[in-house]
């Protein structure tokens, strides 16, 4: 009896130890990735770029956080204390595009997510590993769903208040206001301050329409990052589906996909992008994303196909087939997760590439016309003939692209078992 109890206790202890020592594939890769300091810090750089994109209105907006207007100044109904910044974030007078409203929403939801994430991380030691993973998955899914619902509601709501010119209003000495650091909007034309040199009010000067270039670059972070991420998401999806089908099912599916890839490779991608762009009269950034997404999938498809072919022959997949698991389960639980590593690496480089393509398109004057994308700022700067206006957006592109490339390099090395120490 005693023996059995001891054995049971030993078994439980061994299991607990095994669980404590357990390292998932993700953990191994992550540990490996941290060994490349340049890539590791670049990843934080990318995170910071994202934070800057989200917090752009905190730094620069032509609406005050707080305004106290005495009686008799401005419109009659304006007297009193206001917090106009918070409503302006979702006001169509200040932000027209859904993209901006989405990022503005993130100002509020991102800290919330961050706190929940921290709590989850804290509880990692107390929870069982499996429970922790379930909770994490649930949190990611629910937060994504919740934010999409909130965004859809806000966007479709089309909120619009009567326009108030806060800058002029704050000129009155009896009005007390507290503005963001820069009092500019990225799109309001100001003909009284055209092509100014950089100084303490306009950090990078102004362009031909008198818009503050620093503000535009700040908001351009949103455009460039979104274009990069969404375009790559589109083509990764296409590539994974097509490549997966070809690799797993083989035979005629493989034939068809391979022929298609072969044909697509022959097109100079940029020509194809230009052609597709030629059919759209007034492209929004979403058109550009779609065009880049539709033309860039061949690399991913080949990669995924090769991975599927390789994995299909491996013992664990053969075992899964022998166990009689459904095809869906084999593909999504056994093959796909193992094939996604290289896809992730390729996608990281892809985001950098997509940002460059968008910048080139905008540079040629074929990008989204109104959005303050970096390429567009650069073209506009070129027309003014000032080096600062070329250098600033160009360096912004350069920094983003090199950070992403460094992350990609690190991820590639981390995934390579040959380099693992």
């Amino acid at each position, binding site marked *: 009896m005693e023996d059995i109890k001891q054995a049971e206790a030993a078994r439980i202890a061994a299991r607990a130890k095994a669980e404590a020592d357990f390292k998932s594939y993700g953990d191994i890769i992550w540990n490996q990735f941290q060994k490349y300091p340049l890539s590791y810090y670049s990843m934080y750089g990318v995170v910071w770029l994202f934070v800057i994109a989200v917090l752009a209105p905190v730094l620069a907006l032509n609406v005050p956080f707080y305004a106290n207007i005495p009686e008799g100044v401005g419109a009659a109904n304006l007297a009193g204390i206001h917090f106009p910044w918070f409503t302006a974030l979702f006001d169509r007078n200040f932000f027209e595009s859904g993209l901006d409203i989405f990022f503005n929403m993130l100002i509020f939801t991102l800290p919330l997510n961050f706190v929940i994430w921290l709590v989850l991380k804290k509880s990692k030691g107390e929870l069982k590993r499996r429970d922790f993973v379930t909770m994490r998955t649930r949190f990611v899914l629910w937060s994504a769903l919740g934010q999409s619902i909130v965004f859809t509601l806000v966007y479709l709501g089309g909120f619009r208040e009567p326009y108030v010119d806060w800058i002029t209003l704050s000129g009155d000495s009896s009005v007390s206001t507290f503005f963001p650091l820069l009092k500019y909007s990225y799109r309001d034309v100001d003909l009284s301050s055209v092509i100014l040199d950089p100084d303490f009010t306009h950090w990078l000067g102004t362009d031909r329409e008198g818009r503050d270039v620093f503000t535009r670059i700040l908001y351009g972070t949103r455009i460039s990052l979104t274009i990069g991420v969404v375009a790559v998401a589109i083509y990764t999806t296409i590539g994974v589906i097509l490549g997966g089908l070809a690799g797993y099912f083989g035979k005629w599916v493989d034939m068809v996909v391979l*022929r298609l890839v072969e044909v*697509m490779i022959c097109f100079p*991608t940029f*020509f194809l992008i230009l*052609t*597709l*762009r030629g059919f759209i009269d007034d492209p929004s950034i979403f058109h550009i994303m779609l065009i880049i997404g539709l033309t860039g999938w061949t690399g991913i498809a080949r990669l995924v196909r090769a991975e599927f072919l390789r994995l299909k022959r491996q013992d664990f997949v053969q075992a899964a087939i022998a166990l009689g698991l459904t095809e869906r389960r084999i593909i999504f639980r056994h093959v796909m997760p193992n094939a996604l590593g290289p896809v992730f690496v390729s996608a990281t480089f892809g985001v950098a590439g997509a940002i460059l393509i968008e910048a080139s398109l905008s540079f040629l004057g074929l990008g989204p016309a109104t959005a303050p994308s970096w390429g567009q700022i650069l073209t506009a700067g070129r027309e003014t003939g000032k080096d600062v206006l*070329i250098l600033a957006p160009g360096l912004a592109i350069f920094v983003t*692209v090199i950070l992403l490339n*460094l992350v990609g390099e690190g991820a590639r090395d981390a995934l390579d078992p040959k380099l693992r120490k």
Partner: protein
Amino acid sequence: MATYILKRIMLMFPTLFLISVIIFLVLNLAPGKPTSSSVSTEGTQDSKSTEARESYRIFKEQFNFDKPVMFNTRFMLTRADVFEELRVLGDFARPTCTAANTPENCLPADEKPKSGRVISAQDVIEDWGTYVVPHLIDIARTDARIDIRKLAVNRLAVNAKRRLLNEYGKNQTDEQRAYNREVGAENEMVSNWTATDEVTLPEMEALMAEKWTPWFESHKDRWDWDFGDKASMMFFDTRFAKYWGNLARFDFGVSHIDKRPVLDKIMERLPYTLTLNFLAIFFAYLFSIPIGVWSAYRQNSPADRVVTALLLALYSLPSFFVGLLLLNWFADGDPFGYFPTGGFAGQLPAWWGETPASTDEMTTIEYLVSASYHLLLPVFCMTYGGIASLSRYARTGLLDTIRADFIRTARAKGLSETMVIIKHAVRNGMIPVLTLLGTMLPALIGGSVVIEYVFNIPGMGLFMFESIFARDYNAIMGVLLISTVLTLFGLLASDISYAIVDPRISFD
């Protein structure tokens, strides 16, 4: 070897076929037609726009936009189909009833067709062309509504026109010319048999009886189709068939900017782009292989790390940005004016001597000097990215071979280190780099758009860019096709060179 090359060339044909299908689909099914949108939105019933309407119709005819995309089923159209479209046009012209005022023949506002529907109705009837002439005659003779009959007659004056042979081609034969003269005369005659707005019923009857009915009766056999005719219409009177017919004759059509053949225009520009690309590829290989070998040889040394980081930085620099800065700093004369600001050739460096007035007056040497003077900056912009990526591949290639047994053997038999690296390691390690040649070409051709735009070099990229702006359908198609053919040959070249260099590849 010859069999291998032949096999590869034979394999190019199905690929080329698929490529042309894709180009066709992209150009035809993309949202928005490559037509000048200003024309298509005009042209409702408005009589002022008759001329614009006609030029739009000719434009559509010229570029086969009046044809259905894949299958032509227009011989199956019935009188009801034609009447429906005419009714839309007729209803649109009728006055609107209001509570206060109900003019004769008025229509309630909610029953009036939408303007988008009217424009499409007009396009649809126009595109149906001669196929619906019998139905139009029928409607014009017997319909109950006078306004519809009037519309039908006016439609007839356009739709009864036949197409000329080889109208936009360069050289017509005498036979074609004679036929065209005859058809032209008939078209001219037919186009005058129209009805005015205030036409009365008897006038209408008279016009039909005197002009249209006799004409139709005498040419009735034109609409007498048997099964063979219908089958050939179904498959051959389509945009796809016309496109293929033209491609088979290497006819990419004429550019609609200056009506010159697209092929000629492309061939004029191709040398510039090819020169640029070959120079870029040449220099990229020239510099990247030594750099790659050097950094692989000193793997993980501080020098290797620095070079790797520098190359990554170079790789991340957008070429248009570098091009612009170089142009601003070294060509504009502010602060330096070392280089010309653009173009392919024309200026000579100051230390060389006097620049002739035009490139025609230059000697060959002078032309070469001038071209290299002009191309230094653009080629640099196209090269540095290639150097960065190629040297990475060269580095990994060498790292893979340097640990191989045959290298150890070479060292063991006492060869000098240089000999080991250059003769044994580099030769084997560079094989994967060589295969990149084929994949580099499309990227470079695509990338040359930006460089040609910045440095104003009249190559294919700039031509593509201009055609996109002008929506020059035929030019876009031509450039896409030619560039893919170039790429195919690039891939072929790299496969062949791979087969030559690597003895493990068999030629069967």
